[in-house]
């Protein structure tokens, strides 16, 4: 078949996109050690992830005190359940931030459910407009690859992912806020993430 007979392409075109491999393998190794009950490893792991766990909770919950509670719950849960982490199925950071996001969203939803639905939905919508959410996030993402990749999305893909992830909105709420049909929002979330995945070069580890 073809064995690069049409001339060797320049060397740097062949170089793999540099991934944060070191950071990742360090985090994976630490979390595996945590799973074996290593408290010192947990302390190191804490330093790696705590700012993002707390920040994510704060972003979603919009309340520092609640964010601190949720971050504490999440980090203790990481300690408690670390033995379930399997490096072959995903990175340690993804494992932790998945828990952190889920717990934050659970808290938001239960707060929402506790309040009068109609009234609260109105107040909630007014409380975190899309521009505010995305503005703060953009500042923090400055010069990061994720930011560049988010910029590559269509505005509907970007807004639906941002409102769901950073704003903790359900896809029904996102559809309402952006005045788009439910099937469209589902699809934009999925194809937006797929595009993001390809841009970031994300792979399930080998």
């Amino acid at each position, binding site marked *: *078949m073809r*064995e*690069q007979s049409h001339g060797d392409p320049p060397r740097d075109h062949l170089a*793999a996109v540099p991934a944060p491999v070191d950071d990742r393998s360090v985090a994976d190794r630490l979390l595996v050690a945590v*799973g074996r*009950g290593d*408290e010192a490893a947990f302390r190191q792991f*804490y330093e790696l992830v705590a*700012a*993002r*766990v*707390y*920040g*994510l909770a*704060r*972003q979603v919950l919009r309340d520092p005190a609640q964010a*601190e509670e949720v*971050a*504490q719950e999440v980090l*203790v849960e990481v*300690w*408690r*359940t*670390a*033995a*379930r982490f399997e490096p*072959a*199925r*995903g*990175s340690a*950071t*993804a494992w932790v*931030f998945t828990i*952190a*996001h889920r717990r934050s*969203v659970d808290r938001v939803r239960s707060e929402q459910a506790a309040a009068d639905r109609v009234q609260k939905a109105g107040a909630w919508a007014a409380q975190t407009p899309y521009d505010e959410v995305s503005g703060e*996030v*953009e500042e*923090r*993402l400055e010069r*990061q690859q994720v930011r560049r990749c988010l910029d590559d999305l269509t505005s509907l893909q970007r807004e639906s992912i941002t409102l*769901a*992830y*950073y704003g903790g*909105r359900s*896809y*029904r709420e996102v559809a309402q806020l952006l005045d788009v049909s439910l099937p469209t929002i*589902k*699809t934009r*979330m*999925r*194809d937006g*993430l*797929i595009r993001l*995945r390809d841009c*970031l070069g*994300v*792979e*399930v580890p*080998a």
Partner: protein
Amino acid sequence: MSDVHALSGAYVLDALTDIERAAFKRHLASCATCAIEVAELRETAARLADGAWSVPPPALRDKVFAEVSRTRQDAPVAAKPIRPQRNRRLFTVAAAVVLAAAAATGTFAVQERRLDDQRTVAQAEAARVTAVLSAPDAALRSATSASGVRLTVVTSQSRNEAVLTMSADRPAGADRTYQLWMLDGSTAVNAGVLPVGTTSATRLLSGAAAADAFAVTIEPPSGSATPTLPTVGEVSVA
């Protein structure tokens, strides 16, 4: 694509209701390609956390460390069994093998898919993989070579298709990659070249009824027209 399959994005963004979430999780248990996609999208969504960091209050560290020192850890849970479908034992076994290989490492099929219209192809492929695994005449074969390359194949004569999964202990080497082959007598048909550095793949292959074996060789990064012998892994279905 079934409607539920389209929910993978909303699922990893935690944007589903509890009921939709439960329905999607049930779907995941029986859909190998969805499991790969969800793993990748979950990894992708988690990268968004980089945009949300905020310096935590100093007290958080003390509280967490104090609670951790008095909290017992849970024991690891055994992997959940794949839900049997129509009580067909082979389906369960085959799906478990394919899922395990795919969830552990398989990125190749997904990468190839990116070249095409992703959703349509993913949908069609998921349905075809499931169809092969649950075909009445599905046959499962597996072999591990001395060089540590494991090949598992489920073939269906009636569908003329096969689902081939491969996993190796290590990458093929510097400037080399693995290539899969479908063998019919003396003819070797290219069944896919893995990206350099990849150690596993799951492939859905058409025209598999005539095949009598499947093999893996080590080739240059762009693959070869004919296999470079010796093979590093082979499984016979004859």
